[in-house]
């Protein structure tokens, strides 16, 4: 069947909307739409409502800019977390990744991207001002840079460092090195080189 010839305008609309999503082609869109058509009316309504409400009602935490259902997200409003420790990440996915490790008890600051002139993103397009304000308020001891290790990630780190370094705080970045389970033979030389330069005290590993 020629995918361009739809028997119904409604079907065509739905397929077109699905095909706008990243990674979804026309064929996949059609498969998803036909699947939805076969489901119960209630189920499909729930699906549609979830998407509409997502956009209408979702909020960004006023403090860390993470996605939230309330003014302050459940990480920022959790009093058992260390509010003197702030981890700077690029986006919400990174918050989720670090949360999944269950190793981090501080709070976050979501920049909403990294500096990249070729993508039209400068410092003012990111949540950098608000980070500086948070730090200037004085209750933060340490800022951890957890941006990707690309050229742009490094440049953004350096920009933040320049803006933050006159505050009396500790500025750290994620360790860069050989991954757990890696065989050295297959580790790329850049990573291996960094790992040997930034080697660790063994007693810190075993504790």
């Amino acid at each position: 069947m020629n995918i361009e010839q739809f028997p119904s305008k409604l079907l065509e609309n739905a397929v077109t909307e699905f095909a706008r999503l990243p990674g979804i082609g026309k064929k996949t869109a059609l498969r998803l739409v036909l699947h939805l058509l076969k489901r119960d009316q209630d189920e499909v309504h729930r699906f549609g409502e979830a998407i509409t409400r997502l956009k209408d009602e979702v909020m960004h935490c006023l403090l860390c800019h993470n996605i939230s259902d309330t003014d302050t997200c459940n990480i920022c409003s959790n009093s058992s977390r260390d509010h003197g420790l702030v981890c700077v990440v690029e986006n919400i996915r990174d918050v989720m990744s670090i949360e999944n490790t269950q190793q981090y008890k501080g709070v976050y600051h979501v920049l909403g991207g990294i500096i990249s002139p070729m993508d039209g993103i400068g410092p003012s397009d990111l949540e950098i001002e608000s980070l500086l304000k948070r730090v200037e308020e004085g209750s933060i001891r340490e800022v951890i840079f957890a941006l990707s290790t690309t050229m742009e990630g490094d440049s953004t780190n350096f920009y933040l460092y320049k803006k933050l370094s006159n505050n009396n705080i500790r500025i750290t970045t994620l360790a860069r090195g050989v991954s757990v389970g890696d065989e050295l033979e297959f580790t790329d030389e850049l990573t291996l080189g960094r790992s040997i330069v930034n080697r660790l005290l063994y007693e810190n590993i075993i504790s």
Partner: protein
Amino acid sequence: MFIRELSVMNYKNFGEATLTFSRKLNCFIGNNGVGKTNLLDAIYYLSFCKSYFNNPDSQNVRHEQDFFALQGKYELNYKNEEIHCGFKNGQKKKIRRNKKEYERFSEHIGLLPLVMISPADAVLIQGGSEERRRFMDSVISQYDRIYLEWLVRYNRALLQRNILLKEVSGRNNIDPDIFAIWDDQLVHLGEKIHLKRTSFLKELLPVFQKYYTLISGGNEFVSLEYSSQLNEKEFSILLKESFQKDRMLQFTTTGIHKDDLDLKLGDYSIRRLGSQGQNKTYLIALKFAQFDFIRSLNNVKPILLLDDIFDKLDSGRVEEIVKLVSDDHFGQIFITDTNREHLDGILREAGGDDFRIFVVEGGTINDVIEKR
């Protein structure tokens, strides 16, 4: 190190062929335009993950086909290595070593050292400075894998800075830190690249001069000078000094991306003065020097590809080159030629019987088996 077997499928004008090579001397004989060079290029590709001629991969696919595949079986340090390159139109190419796919091609480059000499090298003399930088970069990255990473990152930072220069044109009150972050990367990487290039050329020069003298018979003096703004001043100062100019022109006017090589014959640029024979000798000597350089660093004799090397040279110089490549100093050699006259010369000099001849005719290859 040598390549024992090459299989090509849909590469340039070749449909399907598998060739078994001599570990010493291999010769592709045929008229101009039959695709002898393409076979050398296939061997080059397996070492560098790209064509010698910098074509986009879609142009390396045989007419009316949508993919090509190359496979080479090598012996390296007495171990077998199997390299496979595959490209399909519209997809990312894949390079596998012993069935394991590389994540980054830079991990492969340097594993199978190789030097190619081709008439296309004339761009080193005739072309713009980017050709001479590419020459330096391709040699250095063969033995220094991190160099390529630096170069990629440098070029990316440069691109970002240039875009930023355009973006802020005409604006006053710019936060200096938005430039500082790119300048910092450029300086950090640029200085390291400059050091590598300096030491590479310092080592290359005497070997290059030795080869030129050998081939030319000795009366001409040649040299090779590294010209870089960083020779005189620190990169960070250069960037500061040229900032207003960069803003006006909206691109970065200083850095290792402006480096060049001054190729000289006597006191003058060879581009202005050299005859066809002198130019060719200059390039061949340069490539032989490159060979020695890589050989001494890796302790492995690189594969040597000689494409139409004897054309436009007088008989004296041809004879010297024949003598040179017959020496045990070189390892596996591939030669293309229109006839077997020079080949027979090499065979006479070398005195061995470890050789293979392939007759190439319009996309097909016939293995001529003979013993002398």
